[in-house]
């Protein structure tokens, strides 16, 4: 996978994960163009499109578009499953996830993505294991904060 974008139906970016090095300007340009292209697609069309020299796989979940750019030799159908798995993870974590959750907790959305994918490939195929890792890491956050609070008291 080269990059993944999440954007709303109005074209507002909610998450961007880039697995290839590009300048900020290029990223903005790609984002703008791709968002435009995907938003222009009619509902009856298939989830794949050719864009520049890449294959783009996209799927809409409620008000959010999940869009991945994959390479020629990658399997489009399994990419749809990857997108679906990510949505499931978000859903389990936030409890019936909606766009607002991702807006207000964007950093958590990134953390979850980074436990699921690494360098554009899936690192863990078990839903349970991904969620467990996030849970533990979250605990680590709170633990440290608790420790700080305790030390201030002293």
């Amino acid at each position: 996978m080269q990059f993944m974008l999440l954007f709303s139906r109005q074209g507002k970016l909610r998450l961007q994960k880039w697995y290839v090095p590009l300048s900020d300007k290029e990223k903005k340009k790609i984002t703008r163009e791709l968002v435009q292209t995907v938003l222009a697609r009619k509902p009856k069309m298939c989830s794949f499109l050719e864009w520049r020299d890449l294959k783009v796989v996209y799927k809409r979940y409620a008000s959010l578009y999940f869009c991945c750019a994959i390479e020629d030799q990658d399997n489009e159908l399994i990419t749809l499953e990857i997108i679906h798995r990510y949505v499931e993870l978000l859903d389990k974590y936030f409890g019936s996830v909606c766009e607002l959750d991702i807006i207000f907790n964007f950093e958590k959305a990134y953390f979850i993505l980074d436990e699921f994918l690494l360098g554009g490939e899936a690192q863990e195929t078990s839903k349970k294991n991904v969620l467990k890792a996030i849970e533990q890491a979250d605990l680590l956050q709170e633990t440290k904060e608790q420790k700080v609070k305790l030390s201030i008291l002293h």
Partner: protein
Amino acid sequence: MPAPIRLRELIRTIRTARTQAEEREMIQKECAAIRSSFREEDNTYRCRNVAKLLYMHMLGYPAHFGQLECLKLIASQKFTDKRIGYLGAMLLLDERQDVHLLMTNCIKNDLNHSTQYVQGLALCTLGCMGSSEMCRDLAGEVEKLLKTSNSYLRKKAALCAVHVIRKVPELMEMFLPATKNLLSEKNHGVLHTSVVLLTEMCERSPDMLAHFRKNEKLVPQLVRILKNLIMSGYSPEHDVSGISDPFLQVRILRLLRILGKSDDDSSEAMNDILAQVATNTETSKNVGNAILYETVLTIMDIKSESGLRVLAINILGRFLLNNDKNIRYVALTSLLKTVQTDHNAVQRHRSTIVDCLKDLDVSIKRRAMELSFALVNGNNIRGMMKELLYFLDSCDPEFKADCASGVFLAAEKYAPSKRWHIDTIMRVLTTAGSYVRDDSVPNLIQLITNSVEMHAYTVQRLYKALLDDISQQPLVQVASWCIGEYGDLLVSGQCEEEEPIQVTEDEVLDVLEGLLVSNLSTPVTRGYSLTAIMKLSTRFSSVNRIKKVVSIYGSSIDVELQQRAVEYNALFKKYDHMRPALLERMPIMEKSASNGPTEIVQTNGETEPSVVEPKHLPPVTQPVNQANDLLDLLGGNDVVPVIQTTMPTKPASAGGELLDLLGDLSLSAIPPMTAYNKNGLKIDFTFERANPNPNIAVITIHASNSTEADMTDFVFQAAVPKTFQLQLLSPSSNVVPALNQGTVTQVIRVLNPQKQQLRMRIKLTYTLKGSPVQDLAEVNNFPPQSWQ
């Protein structure tokens, strides 16, 4: 200073902004606060500030002043800091930034941290965006972690290694030992990432590929794992719609594909498992089809037995009938890849593919179109063409150009009859005429020229099409050209294929003149129609009308048109005797292999093709016919005809003025010679060597007439062997005065790069005392200095 506002609060505030300007104001205010907070080196709230900055960055605002802060967060001991710091690094600090490398040390420390989640953060960051230098520095750490027993870290290290290898391919070797027992892991995460790592190594290095095939016996291992996945019962942890770990299955299949490609043994070892997966996988959901898709790709790429290949194509055929358009799309893509190798098998699904032409989805339509063209053959051409032409009528404009080109190609290859071919071309030109590619026009003209018996039919149909519609330029251009060539057939009503129409010369000229004045015609089209009108001067009798039209355009604003008109005018005035020969019917053309100038082959048995280089003359007509004349007269195989430049607009010393100037300076003292002396006409050659190019000899002919009467309409033509190039400039006059009272001079320039012996054949035509005289001669007595 009050505590910086929380992230949630900022997001809420920004979302209340009603205009872009309002949002920008809020953002600027907050950025200023954050900047001063950074300046104060506030450790407590740095994390919160960077998080806010990242949010604003996502909205599109600049955040580069936070880069160093991310580094500070990464270096912090607090996990929360590191989490946000690494996230910020991944968003703001790609390898193009100067401070990117400053991360290296932090990452190195964190790779050895006591907490695995910190190690995980470091591995993730390195694996997503580490630069080549960073990868080089830290590859050793990654390799170490690849060998750990902690599966959480091992799987991340594997993907990190993939990234390192992509950035620094030379480092691949160092990861080899660590891969030894990767596949004996039980943990699916490790298995999956290991397969990805092995895939990357095998794809990049043929040596690695061979090693894994032979030494590691990778194929049996993968087959075993895949088998376990399929056979073992329900595994809740990895189940997706009843299928066990489809992600892993797909990756294994992909690795098998690479291992089995061009290798008989490996392909054999995986035959059974592939057949098993192909037949047993549940196809009701997308996930099953994803696995089948990958299986099909693998079967087609390896050396599978034919039964398996047929099975694969049939799976694709079933995909084509699936309700899910994504599946149909994928099927068409795969079929396109296999249509060359398994043509017959794909043919069986032709009707389904043709149905996909009517699909609503643009991508599916495009693929169906490409596939349909690939499936056209001699047997199905009529049926297929009907479908494709129907598609051409109704498809989106973005398809029309490709479709039209495809139709032309297919028609050319498989046309069952010439009539059918012409009809198909007509159909395309009339329905999609404006989308036809520019290069189709000369190709079509050539096709039409070569279908000799169809000329009358073709010109009639094209004429009728013009009467209906003159807006589609390619159609108009082809039609004008044909009318110019075959206008005589049109007015004489010679058509056999259909009812001949009654049309007069004036009507035809009306149409062509209409094209010239119409706003719809492009300059190129106007050029075509003017030339067509000119050609009709030798086919029609209303020459005066044509002369009038031509002379009007002699003052056209369009330079191209003006030049043509002036030249044609000159044809009428000074060179009228040449006009019939110049404008006669085009011979059959043979298509040259390259897209360059077409080679002309004489139909009377000449074997050597000659390449014609027209200069400034309207494409195709004049020089070709002149070349024909010379070929006629010269007959020999090794002689290249030359184009006589007869443009009155060009002064005698034009085109190569430099050479002329310098030619005068040289004094090589080559003796003059008499090239021809017969019946009172004497032609002398004088020589100059043209500096600075010693390969060019400049010859001036001097024609003198010792008879009692003037020789009028004097034309001198010359031809030289193939290794030479010759250029004739304009003569001083066409009249050689009687009794040696004057000479006609003309300059010839000969390029002789191979310094071969100069030979020339000349042809002389003139009128003496009312009778035309023509003579041919060979000139072989060139002095050696003229060509050495």
